[in-house]
């Protein structure tokens, strides 16, 4: 901005004017990206405090209750880890897809597809197989169904150029209504009034990690998946190709990368990871399918992936944070009556603020000399 009032010069004729200028940074370093996250979280905390006040509760008391609820004891800490498990996996699923610039909005549906695959396997083979075989088999089933549900949008995009965004969104609903149909029909537990499948056989349940808590083996599987996603993306040739397609698909084509193949592969892989999330949440926690099986874990996964900067380590941290926020807010509701729905509102707010602060840190304010 050089449109300041020019002053007439003295003997030399030139007086440097100093003004502030907003300019784009040549590059945004890692610490600035981290700062953007901190700013977004700080803003979200302020909004949370405002919402808690509106709800008529004392902010300090509510925060203490939330903190205790999330970390106060071994049991509550285990519950936090438990809550972070499914969203860690959906976050990883979204990460893999977004790294290839494929907008998989369908982790929600792929989660359900995976859960359905796992339940089907366990109901079909539950009596015949021991736990050590049945559990891996349910997970394989979920990888297949989730992979199929993610692979179809990938295939349609590669073959017909249709938007994977729209197709994945639509497929979320298709699988939901398919599940609703099955629950009212062949999958219905005849002994129950509710729309739900029979309980999964004992052998398919995931073993608990800590006695007296609900934390199960799925947490370890999710952590292992995070490590595997890291290795895949940064230590293999395929991962290099995935990231190359994400940075510039045209350039990747010139390098001889088969973008269509990567598209299908990445979407199927992303769907498979989201499906695995379903194969962990159901056998680990609910042990049966209902229509309320998914509580928006696919959409939360998108926020976690963004907050984690599309990096597995960041995704682990973000999932842990959101897991704590789930257990924290339910403890807060019990202690202070602040509705637990605050959790979803804050998730949305965090993402909006993160998008804003990401733009903010791209600019800097600098004092420059203007020569007139």
């Amino acid at each position, binding site marked *: 901005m050089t449109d300041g009032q020019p002053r007439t010069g003295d003997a030399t004729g030139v007086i440097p004017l100093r003004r502030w200028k907003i300019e784009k940074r040549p590059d945004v370093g890692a610490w600035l990206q981290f700062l953007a996250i901190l700013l977004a979280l700080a803003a979200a905390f302020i909004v949370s405090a405002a*919402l808690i006040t*509106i*709800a*008529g509760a004392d902010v300090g008391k509510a925060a203490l209750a939330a903190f205790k609820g999330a970390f106060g004891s071994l049991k509550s800490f285990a519950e936090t880890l438990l809550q972070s498990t499914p969203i860690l996996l959906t976050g990883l699923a979204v990460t893999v897809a977004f790294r290839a610039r494929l*907008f998989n*909005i369908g982790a929600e549906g792929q989660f359900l597809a995976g859960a359905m695959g796992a339940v089907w396997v366990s109901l079909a083979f539950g009596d015949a197989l021991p736990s050590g075989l049945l559990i891996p088999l349910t997970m394989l089933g979920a990888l297949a169904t989730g992979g199929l549900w993610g692979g179809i949008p990938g295939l*349609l995009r590669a073959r*017909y*150029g*249709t*938007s994977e*965004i*729209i*197709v994945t*969104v*639509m*497929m979320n*609903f*298709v699988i*939901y*209504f*398919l599940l*609703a*149909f099955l629950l*009212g*029909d062949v999958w219905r537990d005849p002994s129950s009034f509710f729309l739900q499948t029979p309980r999964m056989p004992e052998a398919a349940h995931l073993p608990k990690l800590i006695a007296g808590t609900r934390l199960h083996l799925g947490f370890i599987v999710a952590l292992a998946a995070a490590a595997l996603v890291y290795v895949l993306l940064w230590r293999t040739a395929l991962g290099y190709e995935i990231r190359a397609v994400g940075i510039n698909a045209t350039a990747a084509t010139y390098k001889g990368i088969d973008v269509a193949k990567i598209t299908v592969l990445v979407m199927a892989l992303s769907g498979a990871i989201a499906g695995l999330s379903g194969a962990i949440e159901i056998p680990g926690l609910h042990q049966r399918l209902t229509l309320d099986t998914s509580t*928006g874990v696919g*959409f939360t996964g*998108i*926020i976690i992936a*963004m907050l984690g900067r599309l990096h597995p380590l960041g995704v682990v941290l973000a999932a842990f944070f959101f897991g704590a926020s789930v257990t924290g807010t339910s403890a807060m509701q019990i202690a202070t009556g602040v*509705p637990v*729905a*605050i*959790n*979803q*509102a*804050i*998730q*949305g*707010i965090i*993402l*909006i603020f993160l*998008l*804003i602060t*990401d*733009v903010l840190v791209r600019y800097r304010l600098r004092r420059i000399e203007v020569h007139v």
Partner: protein
Amino acid sequence: MSELWDVAFIASLLAGMVRLATPILLAALGELITERAGILNLGVEGMMLTGALVGFLVAYGTGSLWLGTAAAVLCGGLLGLLMAFMAATLKVDQILVGLALNLLALGSTTFAYRLAFKDVGTQNPTTISTFGTVKVPGLADIPLLGEVLFSQHALTYLALLVVPAAYFFLYHTKYGLELRGIGDNPRAVDMRGVAYTRRQYAAVAFGGMMAGLGGAFLTLAASGLFVPDISAGRGWIAIALVIFGNWQPVWIMFGALFFGLIDSFQLSLQAVGVDVPHELLLGLPYLLTIVALVLNRRRTQMPLSLGIPYYRESR
């Protein structure tokens, strides 16, 4: 089953079709204008939900259904402005903004409703009296057609009137031409000196207002009560409709009527105790949208720059 298909049944089936098409048609026409300006707003669901709650709260508080409707439109418009600010000014990823708005709306409406009423999850939620149907004098007495088309809610007539209005605006006015230009080729429009950002703000705000209106229809005309997540995917149906109708107002209306017919069909058959796989029928619109997307790909009217931010400085 054959004795079911008498005139009264068909009339109620078709009247239900038009009624059920109303909220999704309102929201879809708003989304059409939004997308024609090059902005893909995935936050329709959240805007509808917000309109549904705000309309309900204001109507409950003031006793005026029309004030509630106005408040719903206003709040939808404000959310639209937020979306426009993020998409057109900050140029952040539109997909993510839309999803964030949905989560924010789902959380905050449930939060607000629970604070305002303590009856969430109980058997008797708070209800208000709804808009009545408006019989068009003379026309309402026509057999069949009168019941189907001319004994509907005022907002239904409005939705049906917006269809030709949107068509006329898009294809027969200078502003409509410019708006379509922004969606297809913002650089060309920019070079003609058109204030494209302002147009985008107006388009997205209009989309939000229509979504808010669609939401208000749910609480103030269709049901008279609010339950958390009452929009139940209708915002996504609206987005699907824009695709299904190939970004053209008249086809979007036919799509809305078709989706409304499916909904009315399964409700009518359930009401008379006929066992239909109604879940599969409800899932059909989403599946058909994918099919339409694939089949229409060669003659798609999708705005060419849909979802892609335009930077004046870079090429």
